[in-house]
């Protein structure tokens, strides 16, 4: 019944002393009518629980969300327009700033797209190093998501434990790439630098620490009554809904759909490693939490396998039109000099055509659609950002929920502003 009609009905009741009125209102309706005016609650764009700039406006009836409006775009920097103005290797720093919690995965995703266009495959050692660092980034992405979500549900120690674990990994990433956040590590046709000496031992040491911190958080949260009451049966998406809304990554797997780009379309030597894909059953926030928790263990398994079987060899393809020649050739031979000059001035020149390629990002399928017109700059570069597509389902997940469910649902989507708004 419309709010207007309900109010009229309520006003038309004859409350005179003459007798009992005949207008019948069910008690439920009466209860609604007493507080029939809905309240609008604005959240964001700068809100501590929206780790990123996003605005959600909800219409509340009591504590229930009747309508919701999600407004994204506050972090829009024109990534796709900027890509059209620089050459292929210069896009790399921009990709760092997409999902800035796991920048290496973005680097790898973009490089693989251009390499597919060029028809090359990087040496095995480079692929393995990309896998090792990608998996580290994936763990750090999940750690950030779980830590921040737990903190918003008042489990502050979990946040500290998980940030400590992330620190172990970021120290390793810093050692190899020279930066912690905006690393620009990959290049078209290879990677910037090889692993540092003693990296394997340090990694095994660090993974011990990460496992310890995760176990601590697991103990604190996974069977915790307060936590479970907030996340169980909240933000539920069935498998059909999740597919229709374009979910990928942990959110889709929490709904029970077995789809992982690393397994379904293996890239960068993922077929060499043994790992399982954790699945949920119900598709609520608790399943999303568990899937992420289990995925970190699988990622650590991949890192260990990759480090144990790390092949020797070059880290870049041997093609002067794609990668810079060694410095002694640049200064010692005319060919080397010309190749170096051409690459720096005009960049890598893939053939004409368009290509779509995807990797498993921290939050789902991260795809790049690149159109090349044969010049040194991309004609078009589109990013299929998982966070943007997941935000499209935010309204659906909120309708009918409590206002307190908004925070865990939003936290488990793990929207990364840089990727969502590009």
């Amino acid at each position, binding site marked *: 019944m419309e709010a207007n009609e309900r109010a009229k009905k309520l006003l038309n009741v004859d409350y005179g002393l003459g007798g009992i009125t005949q207008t019948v209102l069910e008690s439920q309706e009466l209860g609604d009518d007493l507080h029939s005016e809905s*309240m*609008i609650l604005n*959240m964001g764009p700068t809100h501590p629980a929206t780790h990123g700039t996003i605005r959600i406006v909800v219409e509340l009836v009591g504590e229930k969300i009747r*309508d919701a409006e999600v407004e994204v775009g506050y972090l829009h920097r024109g990534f796709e*327009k900027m890509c059209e103005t620089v050459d292929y290797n210069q896009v790399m720093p921009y990709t760092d700033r997409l999902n800035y919690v796991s920048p290496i995965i973005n680097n790898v995703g973009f490089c693989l797209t251009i390499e597919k266009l060029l028809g090359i495959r990087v040496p095995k050692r480079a692929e393995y190093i990309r896998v090792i660092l990608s998996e580290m980034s994936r763990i750090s992405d999940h750690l950030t998501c779980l830590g921040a979500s737990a903190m918003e*549900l008042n489990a502050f120690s979990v946040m500290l434990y998980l940030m400590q674990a992330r620190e172990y990994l970021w120290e390793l990433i810093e050692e190899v790439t020279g930066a912690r956040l905006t690393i620009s590590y990959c290049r078209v046709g290879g990677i910037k630098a090889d692993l540092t000496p003693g990296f394997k031992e340090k990694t095994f040491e660090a993974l011990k620490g990460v496992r310890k911190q995760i176990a601590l958080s697991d103990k604190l949260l996974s069977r915790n009554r307060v936590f479970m009451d907030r996340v169980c049966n909240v933000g539920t998406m069935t498998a059909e809904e999740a597919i229709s809304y374009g979910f990928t990554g942990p959110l889709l797997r929490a709904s029970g759909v077995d789809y992982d780009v690393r397994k379904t*379309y293996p890239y960068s030597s993922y077929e060499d490693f043994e790992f399982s894909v954790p699945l949920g059953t119900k598709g609520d926030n608790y399943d999303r939490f568990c899937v992420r928790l289990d995925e970190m263990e699988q990622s650590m398994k991949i890192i260990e396998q990759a480090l144990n079987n790390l092949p020797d060899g070059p880290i870049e393809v041997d093609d002067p039109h794609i990668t810079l020649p060694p410095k002694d050739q640049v200064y010692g031979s005319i060919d080397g000099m010309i190749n170096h000059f051409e690459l720096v001035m005009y960049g890598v020149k893939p053939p004409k055509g368009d290509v779509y390629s995807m990797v498993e990002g921290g939050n789902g399928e991260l795809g790049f659609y690149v159109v090349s017109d044969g010049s040194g700059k991309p004609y078009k570069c589109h990013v299929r950002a998982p966070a943007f*597509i997941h935000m*499209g389902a935010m309204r659906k997940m909120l309708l009918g929920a409590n206002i307190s469910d908004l925070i865990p649902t939003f936290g488990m989507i793990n929207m990364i502003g840089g990727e969502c708004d590009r």
Partner: protein
Amino acid sequence: MLFIAVIHERLVEKFPSHIIKTERSLGDSVVWIPKDGAKGFFSTLKADSELSFDFLVSLTAVDWLDSRETRFELVYHLMSHKTKQRLRVKIDIPEIKPEAESVTSLWSSANFLEREVFDMYGIKFEGHPDLRRILLYDEFEGHPLRKDFPVQGKQPRIQMLHPEVRNTAVDMRRASLVSINPRRASNGG
């Protein structure tokens, strides 16, 4: 048999006039279809038991400016969770009256994706429930990913936002406003 050949075989009988060209490019299957009747084509792709493209991966457009006869090209990427096959569908959109049929009723993810294409290229989608700009604000002039949009330039100044919310589907003017940002105790941060 290559997957693109399977698609060709299955679709040509149902839509004899609907497939302009099929191609295998760098390992991807590509289909060109005309603008009219695109939605019917997509719903067949989704409903067909052997193809069952239930997942719209991405949607974007390419602006070819003067280098092609029709200026815009819509690019759909589809995937099937059943067969794990992928398909790229391309539709040419003319510069005059750039419009296409919305596929929101087939895939819910098309809602945000179509709004983004509208925002960036100015291509309108008929039948979209809520076609507004999404990444940019309503007063923004032009469509930035069009090739004739300058990389550097200035936009006109706009008015400050009122406390009453604009640019949202929720009508807010009748209710009081409560804000829980930025320093609410129960945010934990």
